[in-house]
């Protein structure tokens, strides 16, 4: 059966039908989450969004890689009420962070965090204050800086790509910095390679996305525990300048050709925090980006409290369930929505449950064929049949669902699992290694059909546990909208 399906798929692909060019799942996803595409405010505008922020009066601000900041009115209602665009600022240097506070719009650009204000009321910023430029740049295009929104204490966080693909050649390249609204900078974490976004989860903890490459076997969502080392040692030369803000320089991971594993080096390097959720490279995407929590309390559908992560290359948005086990974050990534027009970078999800994304394919390529996009995602009010949460248990996982399942379909045969990890090494990327094929059983389904226990033998610490649920049906007889989950098992709970 499986062979036949594959052959059929291959034939479809080779025959080049129009359907094969489309993102395969996009049409079904649209029943639950619609995408509204905005046109450019003018034909010559390249709206290559780097970050999006909510302003007072339900205005939306989007900053672009070409250094423009646009303010959009009617962004929630468009096209019923056409969007009105105002160019608030332009000619900034690759703006990839945007936040509003106390009448100032803060933007993170390559050279600095800048705050802007329109004093004469003509809609254009006329005051540009340097909030912080407490990091180095050498002039390499890799030297991107992404910025978060503000935390409740009035700090924003910047994450700084290395100078090139491999080295840190200017101060704090490869670090995360905490910057207060009035410009005080405190080093916050180290070990970054090539970030694509930074933001908070619903609990207010800070995360960033890092791209596959040196010391990153796969791209992943990483928890920025204060003072942590994120895995790439080449930026650690700057510890002498950090004034002890995050302690002493961590020891290097093995610099040998054969590398190591994150699960081993966690024991050797005290401050090393392994990726919270691996986003398996190539399988689910190539370049993760912006991070937003769902604080809508259900207005964006059934995923309140979860986290959404942008994906540039595949023009998608992922959904992530996070949990803390033995003091560190881990969790599962699920596909959420694909079919965006360009490579998503910036994300915003408002408290009233409306998501915006904007991005670009420039220089890096994306599946969406337009050079840039600004798009809105609305929940249609219909609940898709999905895995809701995936929690680690001592002997397996507990899955909850958005809709009751058909208990008769919840047999071991409905599930398959592959577990694997990556080499933690100085070389570029890694294949999947140390494959494990766990044996699965389903000991129990909850009486209400909304959850089940899955026993996994063995549970492998440090491995991605890739679960496929092709055979599972809802009580209404539907298959899962997305029948795959990737759980990163950093820790196995004791109970």
């Amino acid at each position, binding site marked *: 059966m499986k062979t036949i399906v594959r052959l059929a798929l*291959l034939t479809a*692909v080779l025959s*080049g039908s129009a359907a094969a060019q489309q993102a*395969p799942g996009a049409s079904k996803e649209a029943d639950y989450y619609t995408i509204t595409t905005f046109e450019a405010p003018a034909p010559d505008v390249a709206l290559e969004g780097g970050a999006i922020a909510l302003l007072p009066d339900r205005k939306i601000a989007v900053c672009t*890689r*070409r250094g423009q900041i646009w303010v959009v009115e009617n962004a929630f209602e468009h096209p019923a009420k056409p969007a009105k665009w105002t160019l608030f600022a332009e*000619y*900034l*240097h*690759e703006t990839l962070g945007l936040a509003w506070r106390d009448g100032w719009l803060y933007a993170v650009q*390559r*050279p600095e965090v800048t705050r802007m204000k329109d004093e004469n009321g*003509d809609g254009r*910023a*006329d*005051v*540009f*204050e*340097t909030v912080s*430029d*407490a990091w*180095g*740049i*050498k*002039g390499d*295009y*890799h030297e991107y800086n992404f910025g978060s929104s503000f935390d409740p204490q009035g700090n924003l966080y910047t994450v700084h790509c290395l100078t090139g693909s*491999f*080295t*840190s*050649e*200017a*101060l704090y390249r490869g670090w995360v910095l905490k910057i207060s609204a009035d410009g005080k900078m405190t080093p916050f974490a180290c070990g970054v390679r090539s970030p694509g976004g930074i933001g908070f989860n619903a609990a207010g903890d800070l995360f960033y996305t890092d791209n596959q490459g040196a010391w990153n076997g796969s791209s992943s969502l990483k928890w920025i525990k204060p003072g942590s080392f994120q895995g790439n*040692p*080449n930026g*650690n*030369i700057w510890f002498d300048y950090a004034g002890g803000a995050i302690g002493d320089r961590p020891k290097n991971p093995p*610099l040998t050709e*054969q590398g190591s*594993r994150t*699960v081993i080096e966690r024991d050797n390097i005290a401050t090393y925090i392994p990726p919270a959720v691996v986003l398996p490279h*190539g*399988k689910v995407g*190539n370049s993760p980006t912006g991070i937003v929590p769902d604080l809508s309390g259900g207005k964006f559908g059934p995923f309140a409290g979860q986290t959404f992560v942008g994906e540039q290359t*595949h023009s998608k948005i992922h959904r992530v369930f996070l949990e803390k086990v033995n003091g560190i974050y881990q969790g599962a990534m699920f596909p959420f929505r694909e079919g965006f027009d360009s490579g998503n970078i910036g994300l915003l999800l408002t408290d009233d449950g409306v998501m915006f994304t904007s991005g670009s*394919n420039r*220089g*890096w*390529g*994306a*599946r969406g*064929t337009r050079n840039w996009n600004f798009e809105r995602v609305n929940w249609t009010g219909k609940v898709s049949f999905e895995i809701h949460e995936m929690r680690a248990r001592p002997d397996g996982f507990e899955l909850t669902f958005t809709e009751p399942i058909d208990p008769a379909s919840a047999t071991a045969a409905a599930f398959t699992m592959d577990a694997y990890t990556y*080499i933690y090494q*100085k070389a*570029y990327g890694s*294949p999947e*290694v*140390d494959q494990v094929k766990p044996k699965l059983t389903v000991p129990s389904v909850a009486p209400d059909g909304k959850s089940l226990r899955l026993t996994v033998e063995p549970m*492998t*610490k440090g491995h991605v546990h890739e679960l496929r649920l092709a055979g599972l049906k809802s009580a209404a007889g539907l298959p899962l909208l997305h029948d795959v989950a990737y759980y990163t098992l950093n820790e196995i709970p004791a109970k």
Partner: protein
Amino acid sequence: MTLPAPRLALCLLALALPGISVAEPPEWSGNPDATLVIKTLPGMMRYDLGELTAAPGARVKLTLENPDDLQHNLVLLKADPQDKDGQKFAQDTWLLGEKVIATGWVPRDHPRILAASALLNPAASETLYFVAPDEPGDYPYVCTVPGHSLLMRGILQVRKPGKVLTDLTYAIYRGDWNKLPDFSTLQPVETGKLPDGRIDIGVAKKFPGGFGIVFEGKLTATEAEDYHFFLASDDGSRIIVNGEGIVDVDGIHPMGDPKEGKEKLTEGTHSLRVLYFEKSGNRGLSVGLRTKSLGWQDLSVEPSSRRATKAPPTPILLTPKNGEAITHRAFLPGVNPRGIAVGYPGGVNLAWDADALSLALIWRGGFLNVASHWEGRGSGSQLSGYDQVKTGHGLPMQQLKSLDEPWVPTSTATIKYERDKDNPEKDMTFHVRHPDYQFLGYRLDPKNRFPTFRYRYRDAEVSERFGPDSIDGREALVRTITVTGSVPADTWFRLADTGSLEKNEAGWHPVDSKLWLKVEGAEPVVRSVDGKKELLVPIEAAAPEKRLTVTYWWQTEIGGRVK
């Protein structure tokens, strides 16, 4: 629950790594019919060659080099009228997803594949050997890594080779020209013959400059069709077919993108002349042609004109409009990385250095070409005007115990450079913020959006505003420096460290053969340190309100293009 032994797994995996090619080179690998090299362009998501050429059945050695910092591959495909450029193949490969990840995004047994590289890591290269198809035609090659094929592709043109350009001669002339002279009125200093299809300006390599060459040959068209000629040169050149000019890139300039000209030729022989001259500096001449039946043909030793991929990209010029200045932040040549370019209405431009807190450069005419800043991965903007003068000389202020104390223009430190080494040896000097200074940003004038830059120096705040001006019909720039708050005694502002600087009769200080400056508000001092002159102004003495007005004034007609 056991963890598999990592070491064993690693051995197995080395064989499966996509970066390792297992194919054996063929017997003829030491003696191929064609040797081709194609590279990825760093940061551009492109190959450097959009076209390759081979004869039918030729044994081809093709080396793919990957200096980019992403992984790339190259897959050469059989022609398919439904997918002429290979993009559909790349998209379909993407849809195969994890099935092809292990094989480097290549469905290895796919019937369309003629040759395919491994997935090359950054800095890696691989040589492929294949036999070109017997059927002349266009064979696409693509990078099948998801998202790359939109830009990363090209065509292998399989064409029957022909003797296109024969009976090639050259004649060298001497002279100092700014454009192509009428060679028919001149006497050559040297003449000679060249091999077929090998236009070569190397015949004049003994001349340092000031020469011209006329190449003449016989162009044989095997069938009647459109001939597209491509020409690029440093300095000027022209292609003449049957006595008629087809492509012209006359004048003094560096090698640019090739210019194209078209001529329909009948079957038979035609006369081809290429005129070229070189004034001084760099030199180059590349001549190529393309027809439907011949594909691409290099007619010169220098083959760069076939680089169909656009590097550098088409210019995007910024020009101030509506009487407002443009304040543009970017990496700028000749400026520290925190560069801010300002273009004023009327064609006066400056670059502010927010690292050194100084006016780094001024130039006039065109403002900026931002193509390389806004295209690709963003490597920085280029100045596009004329008469650039370096006005920045590092940190602007210093307390001097005496006028003999040297100026310290930079703030740097040294650290051991590391790249995955336990015992780093290489020292690396890097810029550190000087503790006396902090850039504070800028404010735009509500009327004309001229910026006023602000920075802190010790306990004082300094603001600098600039405005374009014109004196006796030549461009000028007026700089107003205002220091608010106290500075220590003996604090000096350094305005220049180039040029003769001694005040001339008109009251100006020459800082460059084409630029003078004048200071109002305090009397400047010209001092000499280590044989180098500097123009210093005492800040405390500046009056009123510690304000200096500095006027920069061009002394020549506009003309020297910025480098």
